């Protein structure tokens, strides 16, 4: 930001600026305008033209910081100043999602199918587009990985698209350059390289599943035989890859099917919430716990893990184990299954206490069980799991193998180290880094930040001008996947052709284009590249029809890879390492962050502010410790620890997580960004600073000592242990066996006043009466619904300081409650939206009738009538109302305006807001039905949270219609109202959660 003191003559600057635009026309005009936007003069000018005071994200009592933030924000966002008016759809023909599958009813806007990718793996989505503005991402019901659900990260992609901090201009060492100069420079280097077969060319990518990019890379390999392609993905499935080689002697891709699985053993795998098919798994898993009929049965889940995960919270038996002990557990299980030789006991009794029962359970369910090895567990654990699945006859039933989905499944660590070797040797003349952020997330000892500089010409294609860009000369702004064409494969190989929904906001290029510049036709458009590739692959006739269908459906029919059979080789299990000793030190466990992953989403306000599953932490990571370990180290929540591992140290605050294993510390990656953007920088601390190639995921031997200082966490809920018995009856729960004996078991002791017990006459709700059920037995607490709600309802991001003050705005929250010993508690998740009480306490006390009841029983909130007495919130026993203490909604940043849902008003300062059951969707559907002169179908209206829920825990509908799903669920014995004894008559009710413990272990 340039010096505000320096006074400049606006008129002069303006004329100078316009002069630059001379001759620019049409799209070029806009391009030059956004190049222009980044120039300091223009920024100064703008600061002077909009000297408005705004409340910043920082300390509310500090107007100065507020103002400084505002200026930053303006500076960062003005690139769009000229552009807001012209979001147009691409020139090429893209396919609106007109033919809707049954039970999926979007509103009026158009929906387009495309795919988000994580670690290169595709997740099919439908993107809602209002007048050419992508505003909301839903799952694609037709896509095998999504089945209609979408995770938090996929949904937040919309905000990423409009992020004003995105890299906005092509720059050489920070100075803006024209594309001509860039391509010129590139051509020259390539020309030189041509001579030596491209010996100096290195291309560094993340994991690639895109067939098109793969073919491009192959072409480059042909024209530059000596060039090398490296891959690095910090949180990729490294061990699974290695394990496949080790156990099958060939690269293989493994995926599961939980529909038939009665017994599931997770070896530190969070399969319900992370991984390439977690949405699919969550749905399949939940369907086995639906309990529609009283005598239905449930699957049984055993989880061993160090840090509680959503999967852990669903476990019928959860065993906290240090990550490095999981291997011993796997061995021991194999031994008790008679698949290996070895001792049946060990020092750590925890490992052995349940083995017999678990083994018997698996044996009794041959072909109907799964052993899932954690992505972050060493290859041997995967091999053992593979062996068990094989011997238990699960392969082909619940476990499937296919050829690898990745274009080139190499050992990425080796690949990266190889690159480093070449860098040191000075052999790298042209280094092209496509996406990723290796400088930030490569193993620390590689010191990539400085080493990269050894490459002569360094070109970086990236969404952000980040840590890696800082180490490169050329920063090429990358187009967001919603802005360009592309393709990617899903967990089972299914191909999705990604289509753009909007013209690139900041210009930019896609990886396809950069790679294309190595070829004879460098200017070929992404559309032509992708379509060209597929037409070359297409065998049958009528490619156009095929293309249209593929793009329209969001997947290429029949592109899933065929299942293979493979046997685990004997020598795979030869090496057995003994359980590692702690020796008074701590175990360090690295895990990708549940919301911002490896840091790539660090600048995404939605993902920063959605409370992380289980911990409920926002805007931060921490040293996760068990209560016992914290006590041993003499630290409280928020105290600072000095961590020392392999001679490197890191200071980080302590967060005490009940259920975390003792003697171990979990560090979530992705925080501590320095060039991440406004929301990312300075948040949390950076565990990559301790992460070496030796231990990508876990290792013993970390020292921790308390140091001075205290850290304020912005967590949205404190640890709360339900009294036993839970006298408030917040979570109704029972064991499956007891439930089978007595349907009332879950509601033991809870009282619900009879309907007649009131002075008032009944209100009649003719026509529709909306209601909702939330199945606690299915909910994994992943938080996808929270982000869905935020995106759908234009909910503001308030920033860390405000969250710390309890002013977060999420309409829907997921509470977690604990029960039992703080070191090994049972954990319950409970999503809490507005209960839409029929006897709403909030309405009674509002002095201006800003919140009243609709004829369909909705507890309406009339924003423009609200004067902000906040009495309603005080009188709401569920505390689901959110208040705009400041002007939280961003009315300044043009790009963020594009992200808004036009059907929902953007709330201003001083107004109360709350969940409305997505009333805009209700009315949209009612209008459609009316236009077509037909009644509404059940399931036609889906609230945002419901539509996105991977485990289908949320069901919404008309309770006046006795045949609607929601009516049937409300008739289920497990149905109950939260705080029913207050007689508020909630329209949102819960289905009690059930555990299905192994009788042998319970005994």
């Amino acid at each position, binding site marked *: 930001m340039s010096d505000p003191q320096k006074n400049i003559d606006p008129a002069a600057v303006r004329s100078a600026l316009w002069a630059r635009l001379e001759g620019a026309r049409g799209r070029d005009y806009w391009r030059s305008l956004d190049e222009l936007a980044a120039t300091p003069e223009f920024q100064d000018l703008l600061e002077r033209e909009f000297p408005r005071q705004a409340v910043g994200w920082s300390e509310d009592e500090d107007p100065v910081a507020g103002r400084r933030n505002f200026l930053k924000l303006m500076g960062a966002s003005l690139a769009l100043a000229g552009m807001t008016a012209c979001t147009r759809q691409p020139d090429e023909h893209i396919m609106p999602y007109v033919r809707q599958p049954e039970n999926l009813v979007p509103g009026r806007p158009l929906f387009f199918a495309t795919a988000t990718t994580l670690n290169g793996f595709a997740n099919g989505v439908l993107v809602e587009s209002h007048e050419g503005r992508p505003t909301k991402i839903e799952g694609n019901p037709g896509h095998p990985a999504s089945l209609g659900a979408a995770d938090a990260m996929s949904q937040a992609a919309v905000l990423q698209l409009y992020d004003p901090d995105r890299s906005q201009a092509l720059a050489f060492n920070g100075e803006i350059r024209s594309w001509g100069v860039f391509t010129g420079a590139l051509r020259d280097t390539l020309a030189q390289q041509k001579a030596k077969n491209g010996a100096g060319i290195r291309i560094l990518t993340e994991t690639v599943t895109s067939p098109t990019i793969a073919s491009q890379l192959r072409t480059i390999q042909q024209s530059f035989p000596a060039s090398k392609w490296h891959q690095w993905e910090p949180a990729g499935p490294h061990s699974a890859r290695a394990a496949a080689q080790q156990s099958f002697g060939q690269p293989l891709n493994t995926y599961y099917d939980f529909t038939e699985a009665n017994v599931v053993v997770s070896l530190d795998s969070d399969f319900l919430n992370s991984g390439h098919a977690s949405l699919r798994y969550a749905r399949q898993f939940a369907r086995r716990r639906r309990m529609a009929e009283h005598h239905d049965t449930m699957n049984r889940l055993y989880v061993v893990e160090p840090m509680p995960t959503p999967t852990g919270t669903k476990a019928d038996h959860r065993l906290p184990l240090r990550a490095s002990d999981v291997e011993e557990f796997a061995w021991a299980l194999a031994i008790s299954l008679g698949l290996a030789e070895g001792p049946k006991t060990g020092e750590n009794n925890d490992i052995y206490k349940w083995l017999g029962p678990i083994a018997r359970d698996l044996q009794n369910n041959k072909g109907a069980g799964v052993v899932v090895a954690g992505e972050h567990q060493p290859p041997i654990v995967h091999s053992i799991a593979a062996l068990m699945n094989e011997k238990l006859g699960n392969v082909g039933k619940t476990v499937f193998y296919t050829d690898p989905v990745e274009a080139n499944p190499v050992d990425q660590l080796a690949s990266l180290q190889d690159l480093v070797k070449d860098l040191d040797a000075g052999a790298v003349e042209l280094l092209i880094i496509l996406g990723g952020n290796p400088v930030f997330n490569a193993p620390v000892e590689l010191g990539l930040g400085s080493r990269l500089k050894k490459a002569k010409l360094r070109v970086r294609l990236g969404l952000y001008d980040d840590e890696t860009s800082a180490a490169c000369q050329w920063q090429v702004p990358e187009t967001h996947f919603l802005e360009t064409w592309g393709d990617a494969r899903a967990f089972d190989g299914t191909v999705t052709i990604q289509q753009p929904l909007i013209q690139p906001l900041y210009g930019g290029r896609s990886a396809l284009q950069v790679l294309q510049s190595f070829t004879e036709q460098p200017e070929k458009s992404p559309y032509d590249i992708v379509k060209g590739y597929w037409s070359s692959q297409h065998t049958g006739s009528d490619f156009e029809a095929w293309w249209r269908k593929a793009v329209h459906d969001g997947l290429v029919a029949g592109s899933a890879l065929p299942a293979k059979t493979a046997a685990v080789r004997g020598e795979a299990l030869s090496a057995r390492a003994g359980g590692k000793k702690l020796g008074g030190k701590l175990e360090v466990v690295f895990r990708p962050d549940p919301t911002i992953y490896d840091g790539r989403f660090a600048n995404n306000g939605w993902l920063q502010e959605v409370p992380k599953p289980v911990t409920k932490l926002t805007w931060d990571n921490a040293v996760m410790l068990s209560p016992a370990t914290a006590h041993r180290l003499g630290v409280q929540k928020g105290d600072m620890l000095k961590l020392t591992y392999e001679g490197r140290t890191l200071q980080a605050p302590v967060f005490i997580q009940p259920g975390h294993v003792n003697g171990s510390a979990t560090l979530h990656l992705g925080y501590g960004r320095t060039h991440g953007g406004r929301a990312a920088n300075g948040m949390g601390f950076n565990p990559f600073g301790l992460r070496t190639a030796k231990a990508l995921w876990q290792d013993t031997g970390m020292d921790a000592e308390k140091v001075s200082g205290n850290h304020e966490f912005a967590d949205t809920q404190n640890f709360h242990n339900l009294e036993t018995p839970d006298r408030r009856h917040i979570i109704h729960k029972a064991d499956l066996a007891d439930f089978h004996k007595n349907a009332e078991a879950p509601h033991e002791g809870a009282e619900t006043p009879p309907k007649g017990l009131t002075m008032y006459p009944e209100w009649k709700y003719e026509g529709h009466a909306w209601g909702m059920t939330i199945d606690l037995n299915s909910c994994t607490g992943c938080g996808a619904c929270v982000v869905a709600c935020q995106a759908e309802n234009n909910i503001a991001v308030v920033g860390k300081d405000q969250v710390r003050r309890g002013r977060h705005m999420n309409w829907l929250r997921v509470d977690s409650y604990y029960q039992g010993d703080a070191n090994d508690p049972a954990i319950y998740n409970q999503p809490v939206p507005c209960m839409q009480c029929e006897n709403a306490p909030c309405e009674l006390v509002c002095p201006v009738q800003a919140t009243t*009841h609709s004829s369909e029983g909705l507890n309406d909130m009339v924003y423009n009538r609200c004067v902000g007495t906040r009495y309603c919130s005080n009188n709401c026993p569920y505390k689901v109302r959110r208040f705009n203490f400041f002007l939280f909604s961003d009315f300044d940043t043009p790009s963020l305006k594009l992200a808004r849902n036009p059907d929902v008003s953007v709330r201003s300062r001083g107004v109360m807001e709350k969940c409305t059951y997505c009333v805009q969707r209700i009315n949209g559907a009612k209008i459609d039905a009316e236009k077509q002169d037909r009644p509404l179908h059940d399931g036609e209206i889906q609230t945002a949270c419901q539509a996105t829920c991977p485990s289908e825990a949320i069901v919404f509908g008309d309770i006046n219609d006795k045949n609607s799903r929601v009516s049937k669920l409300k008739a289920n014995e497990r149905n109950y109202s939260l705080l029913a004894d207050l007689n508020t008559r909630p329209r949102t009710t819960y289905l009690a959660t059930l555990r299905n413990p192994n009788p042998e272990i319970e005994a």
Partner: protein
Amino acid sequence: MNPPIYGLMAEFDDPTALVKAARAAREKGFRKLDAYTPFPIEELSDALHLHKNKLPLLVLIGGIVGGTLGYMLQYFVTVIYYPINVGGRPLHSWPSYIIITFEMTILFAALTAVFGLLGLCGLPEPYHPTFNVPRFAMASRNRFFLCIESTDPLFEHDQTAAFLESLEPREVSEVAH
């Protein structure tokens, strides 16, 4: 035709003397007379037969009007004009209406009392002849005045003056218009 002066005023030192004088004047048949004192004197009111006044009745009416208006306001708004479902409560939630009805009753009654007072006393009254008597200022400190007005049929300057003198006042003075 307007009499030359407003009346004659006698000044006394203490309430007892004044009351005595007032009684005497009434017995003498004077009706158009008034007394001026620094504080209210019970006995003076019976001496001058001033007990009846309409204020209580006015206040009662004011109260009734206020209460009725208060309840009507709420009834019409919630039942007739804007029948909105608030928290599942009946439209006509009479128990909730009691308070506002009560407050409106008090408010109207109180306003009637105050403006009734001013009305019955004819206040504000920018000019009054009694103030032409220099010593009358003491009426708001420690002196007690009896004034016989010239409009009284029995009023005759010299005799009335003599009569007043007979009451042994501190001093008798003419009250000019």
